[in-house]
């Protein structure tokens, strides 16, 4: 039976080792190797080589193909002193990696040579536990979760769609959630608006939602805007900077403001709307797909525009649509998967069917087309409320997200 020392010598005899200086030359070359730190988590957290990816040796075989899928690309491995990385290099050779190199002397000699290191951002023990089911997903991981914690999502409306969307985004650990809603919670909301509750009746929806979100996840900073979106306040509300907008408004004037702003500020909008048993979801991503006005150049006049208040809606429907919106928002924040850009997903709860429509950019679109005719915000409330025959369905009665 070989001793540890003999085993190590045998491994080192089979693999290629480089000094810290030579390693640095390789890393700075035009064709740098993938750099893998195979130490344990606590060692990694105390500092690592810049640009390294952390794959503890115990997970090396199972994770290396995700981290370094190209077996013909050289891989440079390091540990604390160059022993674990020697075994790791041999393992990669067995897995068919053409050139697996071990850093002789490891991180200790690298530091001793005065070469640059960095302290990693890490989640810390409480967050590692809270987000463990995200961390287990290859597309998420610790870097993905840190990205979510850094991301900023603005919700238009804390009503039917905004309720589930905000709760799931909060649970997922989105670091900052802006909520725009002017309304207070009333009894008719509670059949579907699950961010609110019976004991928050009469309370502003922004306060009620904020309390729920903070109770759910203290990592989330809620930025409330207890106001209706208008051409006057929209620039101020967008000013802090948002990565994604989730549009769950209940009226056309707000939706057109959101659209025009998103085109001018280059912010993707996850759009959802509901009526009775049917819902629609899509992503309007400026530059890569159509905008809302490509689809519907102008809003309908108020008398032709039914809102939830008159049409009714199955209480769980916004749960389905708002959850899809949250999913799309997370995909956009993480830059993973295929967002619903250029595709309108229709859900019919009664028939239990999803259908998809193709959406294309309209070259004649008045906002994102070749020669835009709309270059400033339009307040459709006043525009529409003018000399119209039937003011009964006037959307200005409703706050966003009611």
């Amino acid at each position, binding site marked *: 039976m070989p001793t540890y020392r003999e085993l190590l010598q045998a491994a080192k005899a089979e693999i290629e080792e480089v000094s810290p200086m030579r390693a640095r030359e390789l890393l700075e070359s035009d064709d740098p190797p993938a750099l893998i730190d195979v130490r344990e988590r606590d060692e990694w957290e105390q500092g690592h080589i810049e640009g390294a990816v952390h794959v503890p040796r115990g997970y090396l075989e199972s994770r290396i193909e995700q981290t370094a899928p190209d077996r013909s690309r050289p891989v440079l491995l390091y540990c604390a002193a160059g022993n674990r990385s020697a075994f790791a290099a041999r393992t990669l050779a067995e897995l068919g990696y053409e050139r697996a190199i071990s850093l002789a002397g490891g991180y200790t000699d690298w530091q001793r040579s005065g070469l640059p290191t960095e302290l990693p951002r890490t989640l810390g023990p409480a967050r590692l536990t809270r987000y463990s089911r995200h961390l287990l997903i290859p597309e998420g991981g610790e870097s993905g979760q840190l990205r979510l914690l850094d991301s900023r999502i603005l919700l238009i*409306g804390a*009503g*039917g*769609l*905004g309720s589930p969307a905000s709760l799931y985004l909060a649970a997922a650990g989105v670091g900052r959630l802006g909520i725009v809603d002017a309304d207070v919670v009333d009894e008719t909301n509670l059949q579907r608006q699950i961010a609110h509750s019976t004991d928050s009746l009469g309370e502003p929806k922004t306060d009620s939602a904020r309390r729920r979100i903070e109770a759910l996840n203290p990592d989330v900073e809620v930025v409330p805007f207890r106001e209706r979106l208008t051409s006057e306040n929209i620039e101020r509300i967008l000013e802090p900077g948002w990565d994604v907008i989730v*549009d*769950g*408004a*209940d*009226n*056309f004037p707000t*939706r057109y403001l959101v659209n025009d702003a998103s085109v001018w500020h280059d912010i993707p909008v996850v759009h*959802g*709307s*509901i*009526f*009775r*048993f*049917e819902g*629609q979801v899509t992503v309007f991503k400026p530059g890569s797909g159509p905008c809302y006005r490509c*689809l*519907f*150049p*102008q*809003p*309908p006049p108020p008398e*032709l*525009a*039914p*809102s*939830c208040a008159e*049409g009714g*809606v199955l209480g769980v429907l*916004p749960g389905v649509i708002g959850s899809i919106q949250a999913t799309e928002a997370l995909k956009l924040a993480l830059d993973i998967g295929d967002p619903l850009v250029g595709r*309108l997903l229709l859900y019919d709860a009664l028939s239990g069917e999803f259908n*998809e*429509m*193709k*959406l*294309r950019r*309209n070259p004649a679109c008045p906002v994102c087309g070749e020669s835009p005719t709309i270059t400033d915000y339009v307040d459709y409330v006043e525009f529409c409320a003018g000399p119209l025959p039937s003011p009964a369905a006037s*959307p200005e009665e409703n706050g*966003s*997200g*009611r």
Partner: protein
Amino acid sequence: MSRVRIPPTLRSETEGAREVEASGATVRELLDDLVGRFPSLRGQLLEDEELAPFVNVYVEGEDVRTKDGLETRVDESSTVILLPAMAGG
């Protein structure tokens, strides 16, 4: 006859029907047939005899605005979907 899917926001104009049949070789003829039978649909679909800017018509999953508009051809077997803007949230 083509099958025309009526969205929930317009069903009060079609006596609650989720789908109706209509005839016509183009979208324009088809819509004319439809509004002939359901006159209150006219204002929801057409504006100055053109497609209203707050509604879309899909023939076989394609937006007719990106094809030939109201002159887009419709087959007997085509499924036509009316899609008005919906604001509820």
